[in-house]
């Protein structure tokens, strides 16, 4: 099956810093999503981005499907950005296959 790898596994930032999170996947996909799991456990949809670039406020994402990776950019990080960021791709049966996540801690 498809393998999804995320890096780095852990990231500590000072408030105001920028960061890039990476997601590599082992096979071609036509569906990729980024999620933020906040400290309360809620899974929040950030982007549906099978290819190209999207921006939403301080967050943006780019997927290069031909090279099998996606990047999530966080600019001017805030303490509320803390949590775990998951990348997930759609398997052949329709379910999402998740990476192990990047745990982000933003310090004030």
């Amino acid at each position: 099956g498809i393998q999804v790898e995320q890096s780095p596994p852990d990231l500590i930032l000072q408030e105001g810093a920028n960061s890039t999170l990476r997601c590599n996947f082992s096979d071609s996909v036509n569906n990729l999503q980024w999620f933020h799991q906040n400290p309360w456990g809620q899974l929040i949809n950030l982007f549906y981005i099978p290819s190209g670039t999207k921006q939403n406020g301080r967050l943006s994402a780019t997927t290069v499907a031909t090279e099998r990776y996606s990047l999530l950019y966080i600019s001017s990080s805030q303490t509320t950005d803390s949590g775990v960021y998951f990348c997930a791709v759609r398997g052949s049966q329709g379910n999402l296959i998740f990476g192990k996540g990047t745990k982000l801690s933003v310090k004030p």
Partner: protein
Amino acid sequence: DTAVSQTPKYLVTQMGNDKSIKCEQNLGHDTMYWYKQDSKKFLKIMFSYNNKELIINETVPNRFSPKSPDKAHLNLHINSLELGDSAVYFCASSQGPGSSGNTIYFGEGSWLTVV
């Protein structure tokens, strides 16, 4: 209005008990899922239903039985609960199974603790 809602949000129960978690979606989607998030935060598919038919059944103990009375509901029943069943269970829904280019939406999770 919550798009995908699960109840209960928190559940603490003793080993050996039987419990159910309910899920409802008001998005008009035809596909629903159950995911399990373990203590290491790893999210993995358990079951998926499309129009009330089971289409994904991963390697899950048969103590876990999903039931879909209609395409807006997917409940998860767990028999003879064990300590290792303690986890967060997420319900999700989407329009269409397969490699469809549609977003999957998640509920807020149900925290199950078996003591």
